[in-house]
Structure formats: structure tokens, C-alpha cells
């Protein structure tokens, strides 16, 4: 809309203004990422200097090496009798990333395997009480997480699944499925039913029609739903805090929030953890950007 303007001078001014605002926004969006990354390449003692070091002149990978191998970065090494405090928990980040990824991928699969057919049913079919069931599934997310955290803990403890992947997967499935079902129901309904009807006439079953006719057409929506589920789980904090006990199952946000509040936190190492932790979702967001945007677009604009 901005490209059509009256008068070349006004047009140029306006363009300059728009570019200016755009660039400011780019800086605003990227700055926190840059800041963390910068800090991960510095020695601890340089992080707190005044004036601020915007760009370190001596970047070092020492901090990364510590997280991967346990070799103490030179900036923390013994000088005098004592070694500096080093957040030893940062060495667990790889394990925590693995836990978060395994759990998030599993929950995404649960969402796809169970949520897609359910959404398909709500979009295309009816059974006695289907409206009630649909509304129930949606309404189940109404209570603030704080209210159900303790009962969730008790359930998972009773079935003996504390500190296990399965416990997390169950809980996260329960809290992501409603959104996926709602989202996919809307999405499927935006796809004309006539397409599958042809398939059904050819003798497909409903599931086959979903798999071979609807799913390819609705791929952007399904991908977006999967991405939403993955992100929601990968980023969740409160239930992760309650349900995990050791690094066997501890998820990334819980580990990082813990490190950042511990009395022996080393910020440079914490920044390494954060950098490593945000790589997977950032890559995913970049890869699936088209799908997520298109998926939202279809749902909203119908």
C-alpha cells in the first residue's frame, strides 16, 4: 500500500521513514539474541565493565568448550588458591536439550496422530454429543496452569511417572491437544469438502480420505499445528519444574531458569546455554515460517 504516493519528494521521504522504522524494528527484534550471543563469547570479567563492550575484541570459544568437555575456561581458571565459581550445572544443557527435544517431538506426534483425526471428525462429521465433546475439549484449557499443577503432580506421581519422559508427554499432550484440535478443525473447514467426497465416492474410508486427499491439501495447516505444539512444549516451564527431578528428564527452560537464579551462576556460561537452547526453535521457526504464516492466514481469513 505504501508504494503508491503522490509526488516524488513526499514519496522518498515516506520511504525513508518506512525504512527507518523497519530497521529500528529489526534491531529491536534481534538485539536480545545478539546480546546473549556476544556474552557467550566473552570472559566473565569483561561482562560487567563500564563503558559497555558492544563488540568483544577477543572472542573466545572457551565457554562453549567448557559446556561440551568440562575443561575450565581460562577466564575462570585458578589464579591464586581459589578457582572462580563456575556454574557446573551448565554442563547438563545438552542433556536438557535432548530431553526437551524428545518430549516435544513425541508430543507433536501425539498431536498429529490423535489430534488430526479428531479435528477431522469435528470438521466433517457428527455423532451424538459431538458438539458437547468439542466444547469440552476446548473448555478444558480454561483453568490457569497454577491451579492444576499440584493435581497434575499427584496424578503423575500416583502412576509412578515422575521424572520420566512419559509423564511429561502425557501432561503436555493433554495441554496441547485442545489447541491443535481447535486449530485443525477450523483449518479443515476452510478446505472445500467436495474434494474428499470424490475420494469417498471412489470407496475410500474416512481415514483414507483424510490421509490421501485432505492431508496433502491441508499440509500447511497441519505443519503449523505441529509447530505450535512443538514450540509450546519445548518452551513450557511450570509443569516442567514440577514434574522433573533430575537431569534424566529435566527440560531446558527449567534447567536454564535454575542456573540463572543459582548462587553460583556464571553469566557467560549461562549465555552459552541460552544460545544452544534457542538454536532448535529458531531454526524451526525459520524453516516453517511459510507454513506458520500461511496456516494462520487461512484460518483467520476464512
Amino acid at each position, binding site marked *: 500500500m505504501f508504494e503508491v504516493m503522490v509526488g516524488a519528494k513526499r514519496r522518498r521521504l515516506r520511504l525513508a521513514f518506512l525504512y527507518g522504522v523497519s530497521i529500528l524494528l529489526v534491531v529491536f527484534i534481534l538485539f536480545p539474541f545478539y546480546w546473549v550471543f556476544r556474552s557467550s563469547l566473552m570472559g*566473565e*570479567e569483561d*561482562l*560487567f*565493565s*563500564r563503558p559497555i563492550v558492544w563488540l568483544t575484541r577477543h572472542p573466545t570459544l572457551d565457554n562453549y568448550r567448557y559446556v561440551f568437555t*568440562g575443561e575450565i575456561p581460562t*577466564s*575462570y*581458571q*585458578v*589464579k*591464586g*588458591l*581459589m*578457582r*572462580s*565459581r563456575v556454574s*557446573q*550445572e551448565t*554442563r547438563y544443557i545438552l542433556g536438557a536439550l535432548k530431553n526437551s527435544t524428545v518430549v516435544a517431538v513425541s508430543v507433536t506426534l501425539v498431536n498429529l496422530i490423535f489430534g488430526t483425526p479428531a479435528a477431522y471428525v469435528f470438521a466433517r462429521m457428527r*455423532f*451424538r454429543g459431538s458438539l458437547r465433546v468439542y466444547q469440552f475439549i476446548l473448555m478444558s484449557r480454561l483453568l490457569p496452569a497454577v491451579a492444576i499443577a*499440584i493435581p497434575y*503432580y*499427584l496424578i503423575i*506421581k500416583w*502412576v*509412578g*511417572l*515422575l*521424572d*520420566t519422559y*512419559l509423564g511429561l508427554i*502425557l501432561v503436555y499432550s493433554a495441554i496441547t491437544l485442545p489447541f491443535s484440535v481447535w486449530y485443525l478443525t477450523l483449518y479443515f473447514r476452510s478446505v472445500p469438502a467436495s474434494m474428499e467426497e470424490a475420494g469417498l465416492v471412489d470407496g475410500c474410508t474416512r481415514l483414507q480420505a483424510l490421509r490421501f486427499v485432505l492431508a496433502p491439501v491441508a499440509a500447511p495447516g497441519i505443519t503449523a499445528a505441529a509447530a505450535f505444539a512443538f514450540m509450546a512444549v519445548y518452551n513450557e516451564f511450570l509443569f516442567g*519444574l*514440577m514434574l522433573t*527431578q*533430575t537431569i534424566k528428564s529435566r527440560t531446558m527452560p527449567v534447567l536454564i*531458569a*535454575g*542456573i540463572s*537464579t*543459582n*548462587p*553460583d*551462576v*556464571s*553469566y557467560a556460561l549461562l549465555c552459552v546455554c541460552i544460545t544452544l537452547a534457542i538454536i532448535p526453535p529458531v531454526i524451526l521457526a525459520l524453516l516453517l515460517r511459510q507454513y506458520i504464516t500461511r496456516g494462520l492466514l487461512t484460518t483467520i481469513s476464512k
Partner: protein
Amino acid sequence: MFGRSRVLMAAVLALTCCFVAGTGYASGNVDLTFTAWSYGVETVNDNIAKFEQMYPGIKVAFSDFSWFDYHDIMATRFFSKTPTDVCYSSDHWLQEWAAAGWIVPLEDYFPWVRESKAEFAKYAVEGMTYNGKLYGVPYYADLMIFIYNEEMLKKAGFNQPPKTWEELAEQAKAMKAKGICNYPIIFEFGQQEGAANEVLISMVYSRKDGHMFNGLEPVFNKPGSAAAKTLEWITEGMQKSKIIDPASLTMAEIELVKSMQSGQHAFTILPKYNLAELNNPASSKLAGKFKMALMPGDTHETVGYVRFYAMTKMAVDRGKDVVDAVGKFIQYFGGKTNGKYIVEKRWAVEKGLGFAQLPLYDDPDVVKAINSWGDVKLELEQAKLARAKEGLSPFYGTWDLFVRTELHKAYLGQQSPQQVLDTCAKKWNEMRKK
């Protein structure tokens, strides 16, 4: 339709139950569950490995939780009976945990604990005692101490650290006037910070008649009390003379240490072991500039606190073998092995943690370590002037949380110090009644 759905529901439930894993213990061996807050976890793991080597029949499962969440997570574990045999605890939670029946008095189970009392600092023993019985063996114990930046002090033209609070205010004002720094004083008053109130209490203790409670009766809210004077002094420094950094309100211990290391502040109060970090060349360009002084005030008294190993009721319920194993564990970690406090010494030398096991002060390695970042003589002198927190009771921890928010209102000038102290006393009396 409905009947079928019920069958299906049952099937789903049954499937869920199939995942329930049975937990069995290997015969002849004892499995212990040990929970701690996350601090030096690799060191802890290493200590556990050594312990397991010494006692091959005992296997220790270690879980750690963030210090900020530790109390809440432990309460949830106790409530839900999540297996936990031995754990860290702290003086301000002791009575709550003991009264709820979550932890048990160690002296009833292990005779050596009673004997070693004599070797523990007095304030630590007091902090671990409930109804006359000792519930813990120290993991570490420390003092709240006054710390100053010697270089900045000299730059401002003072040769001696302040002896009283008035003198501190004067020195700070001079520093501010000379432009040496904008906020000479900074404290860790962040609401998440467990030591926030201990800082305040140490300032109260150092004044004449410095008491918070008489037994369980609040005296801090009496007009003109040491607490009222302290609160007025802080408010004045924050609101009027602006010698105390308002950022204090968000500071936690570790952030405060980093802020001191950035060289923008000259005075603070911290748990003593932080002096080791402040004077560490690896993490600070100002290493060596930070000195400890006796707490300013009339009596120079301060708070001594203790964090300790406790045995849970759950361990006792599991039987004699488990209790024996817990005893060995606690003795190895907090007591003596072959006549020596090995783990405690390791914490003191490697991390600079304070200790309540007094004989360690005679250990040349420990003395050398302390002198490399502090002053063992001064430390001992301050330790003699340390007192446990007053008013320790089952509801102390909860009250402590409440107070942190309320005190902010005074620091921010939203309410008068007296108003705030009255609110805190009212809350105390309310909780006491319950």
C-alpha cells in the same frame, strides 16, 4: 454409543496404567535418595562417588533443584511422599519441616551427633535445634559480613572503614559528593533473595538493644527500636541522601557480587563466602580490593546462619538399614571421617564456603585459603559476635517472604517505616494464632 465410549475410556485408562513402572530395590543394597539445591553439583557428585566407594553397599540417587524453588519443591515432595531420605535444609525452614513431621531429630538416631555439638559454632547449633533436639549436621554455615572497597575508601580520603551506621552514611555522602561513585552503598533486597531479610537483621543486631523478637513476641515494631532505626536509616539513604542504590530492590546475592565487581559501589553486606568470589582474580578486575570489617554499629553483632543435612521421616519409615545408611551419609558429608571433616574442608578450600565445624579453623590449608581472600582473625572475631536469627518458629519462613514485599514499601517511600513494621508485626501475630 455411550456404553461403548465407557469401555473405550476404561481401555485408555488401563493403557495408561500399563506404563506404571515397578520400582524394586536390589537386595542387600540400600538405595538412598538425596536432594539438594543446585550448587557445585559436580563437586557433590564427586563426593557421592567417593562415598559410594567407601560404602559399596549404598547407592545414592542425587536430585538437585534451584535454590529459589527448593523450599516449594521440597514441601511438595514431602506432602506427596515422593521418596526422599536425606536433604539439605535451612535454619529458617527447620521448625516448619519438623513441626509438619517431615524431618526427624538426628540425635535420637545417631549418638555421635550429640557429641559433635560441642565442635559446632553456637549460632549454628541454635539454628538446627527444635524443641531442644538437634535436627541437622551443618552443610555450611556463615555470617553476614560488612564488605568495603578499600581503594574507593582511600580515594575518598578515609583510612578506616566505618565503625557506626552514622559514620557509614558520612563516608558514603563524601564519596558521592566527590563523584567517586553515584551510589556508594548497595544491598541484596530483591524479593527472590533469601538473604534479603538477613541483611536487615544483621544491621539490627549490630545496634544497641538490637533485637527483632523477645521469644516469639515481636519487639521490632516498638517505636525507637533498633529495627525502626535501621529501617529509617535505609529509607533515608534511599529516598533523601540517595547513597543507597535503588537497584538494591532487584538484587540477589550473585548479582550484587557482580555489581560490586563492576566497581560502582563501595559498601555492602553479604554472606561471608562471597568475599572469596569478590577477591577472585578470575572473575574480577578489582580482586584484592575488597575487605571485610566488623559490622558497623554499637555492638558489632551480626547474623550467623546455617544450612544443614536433615533426615526425613520417609527414611525412618523405610527401616533400620536405610536409617543406618543415612547416618553414614550425614557423617561422611557433615561429620568426621577418620577423625577429619573431609567434605566440609573441601567446600571451604575449593569454594570458600563458611563452616560451623570449628576445628577446621586449626587446619593450615583452610587458614591459608581464607587468608588468600579474607582475614581469618577478623573472621573469627566476627564469628564470636554472631547470633542465630530470633523468632525462629514453624511459620518463620512464610513470614519472611511476606516481609520482603512489605519492606520494599518503606524503601520506596510508599509507606512510613513504622507503618511497615506494624504491618509485619500484625501479620506475625496473625500467623502465630493460627
